[in-house]
């Protein structure tokens, strides 16, 4: 399929951003393999019979709460002739009926009804040996932690706690601490780049202090601030942790050409953060294999779900949330700070734009096997935790795990 360059995790072949065969392997091994994919929030399906439709990789799935209130899920494609069964993104139903020939399934994707199974007036019907139990839909295991739902197609995926590892579980619980969540709204964008470019971006503190002029200008994220990158032992998951500074120039910011010292806001309410989590960190960006980014930037909280759409595009589905016990001022603050994020974000638009530029850059060169590779040497060659931002260690860790799962 591909020979990985000699530089190991310090080099990334362009081919993995464009090749349809590698993409097909990724869907099978990464998204539908031994991984817990983020699929939604408990508050989105609070009652028995509620369901939501989302994607794991590029595969549509239905996540359900059965009549006893237990979480379940199944592949959203009819066992008969493959029709996508659920077309609504959310709803409530005891039975899931395919629109084409009305085969019906329960909340676990078990086939319950087949119209005309015995034929009509002694004509037609299914063969004698037709057994509905042979046509249940691929089932998902669904689990919840702190109100966040994860699903897996595999029986071999270890429990979520083990899967996340201690450090990542601890930071996950920092945001999802048991308080009831409130969804503030959704935002969706289709980014014309390979899905891994999104993970690279969020695991890359080096760019954050250079590309994001807005963050740098207002001291929300800068190379001279106290910060860390931390990974789980496998390298699959990562944390980028940082502490807010002031809007000022220091010796270390000389390299940052883009710093706008004299940019002051006409309306400073846009950036009016208040401390709400224990500890000193003001930004924690967590990446959870294979499809989730948990964003805590000041008071704006969001889950960003990565849904690949072929090798050269992915949907980034944002769910902005707060807590049920937020007061009105906090909700307004979260809604204001959301200006920094998603498709029109003062910060995030830099990322979606630069991901497109990366895809545009690598596409025509991807088949030039000898030289077509990205370089990940900032901060050395290791993939261990670091106490600074000038490192690509978290991306190297990601690719260490990627190569194991993909056998590359």
């Amino acid at each position, binding site marked *: 399929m591909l020979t990985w360059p000699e530089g190991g995790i310090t080099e990334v072949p362009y081919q993995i951003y464009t090749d349809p065969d590698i993409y097909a392997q990724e869907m099978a091994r990464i998204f539908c393999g031994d991984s817990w994919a983020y699929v939604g929030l408990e508050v989105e399906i609070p009652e028995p019979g509620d369901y939501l439709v989302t994607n794991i990789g590029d595969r549509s799935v239905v996540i359900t709460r059965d009549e006893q209130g237990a979480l379940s899920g199944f592949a959203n494609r009819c066992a008969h002739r493959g029709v996508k069964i659920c077309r609504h993104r959310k709803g409530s139903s005891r039975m899931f009926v395919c629109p084409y020939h009305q085969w019906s399934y329960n909340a676990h994707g078990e086939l319950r009804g087949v119209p005309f199974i015995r034929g009509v007036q002694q004509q037609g019907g299914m063969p004698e040996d037709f057994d509905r139990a042979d046509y249940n839909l691929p089932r998902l295991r669904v689990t919840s932690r702190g109100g966040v739902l994860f699903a897996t197609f595999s029986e071999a995926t270890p429990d979520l706690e083990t899967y996340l590892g201690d450090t990542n579980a601890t930071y996950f619980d920092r945001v999802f601490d048991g308080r009831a969540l409130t969804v*503030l*709204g*959704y935002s969706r*964008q289709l980014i014309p780049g390979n899905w891994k470019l999104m993970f690279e971006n969020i695991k890359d503190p080096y760019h954050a202090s250079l590309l994001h002029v*807005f963050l740098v200008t207002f001291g929300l994220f800068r190379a001279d601030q106290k910060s860390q990158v931390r990974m789980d032992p496998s390298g699959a998951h990562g944390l980028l942790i940082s502490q807010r500074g002031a809007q000022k120039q220091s010796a270390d910011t000389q390299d940052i050409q883009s710093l*706008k010292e004299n940019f002051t806001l006409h309306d400073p309410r846009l950036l009016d953060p208040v401390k709400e989590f224990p500890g000193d960190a003001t930004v924690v960006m967590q990446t959870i294999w294979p499809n989730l980014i948990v964003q805590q930037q000041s008071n704006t909280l969001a889950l960003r779900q990565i849904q690949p759409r072929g090798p050269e595009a992915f949907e980034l589905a944002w769910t902005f949330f707060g807590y049920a016990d937020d007061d009105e001022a906090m909700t307004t603050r979260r*809604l204001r700070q959301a200006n920094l994020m998603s*498709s029109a974000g003062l910060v995030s*638009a830099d990322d979606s734009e630069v991901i*497109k530029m990366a895809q545009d850059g690598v596409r025509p060169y991807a088949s030039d096997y000898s030289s077509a590779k990205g370089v990940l040497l900032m901060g050395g060659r290791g993939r261990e935790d670091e106490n600074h931002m000038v490192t690509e260690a978290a991306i190297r860790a990601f690719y260490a795990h990627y190569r194991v799962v993909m056998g590359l």
Partner: protein
Amino acid sequence: MNLELQWRVEELLARYAQVLDDGPLEAWPELFTEQCLYQIIPRDNFDAGLPLAIMRCESRGMLMDRVRSVQETIVFEPRYLRHHITNVRIGQVEGSRLEAVSHYSVIEVLPDSLPHILSVGRYLDVLEDRDGVLRFLEKRVVYDSVLVPNSIIYPL
């Protein structure tokens, strides 16, 4: 029916499109009142009563901050936009305050691609008529095209 008012609202919307598509972008905040609310809201949030907007400016100052960010801080590919605003209907008129609804679509042209629709939806506007000048007190851009093609840099 007040034809003159209809004409003035359409003129404001045409000016709105002009400053965004052809500039100067600095003129865009001037079309709003000092205290105002501008929001770009995905239609599914709007229909579900969810408050999240992808762009939210709560004063003319915040609109000016957005303009300056587009000009100085956001890194993006160059592009042309073209607004088309139709089906303009004036709703309730109360003293100096009036409501107007219209449909819009915005076509985007990126350097190496054919034109495509960036956004389609409706404008839900509240206008103030003061000293012979119409301005936006509130503008909600509710977009049907909920899956955004990459980024929205300029206001819609």
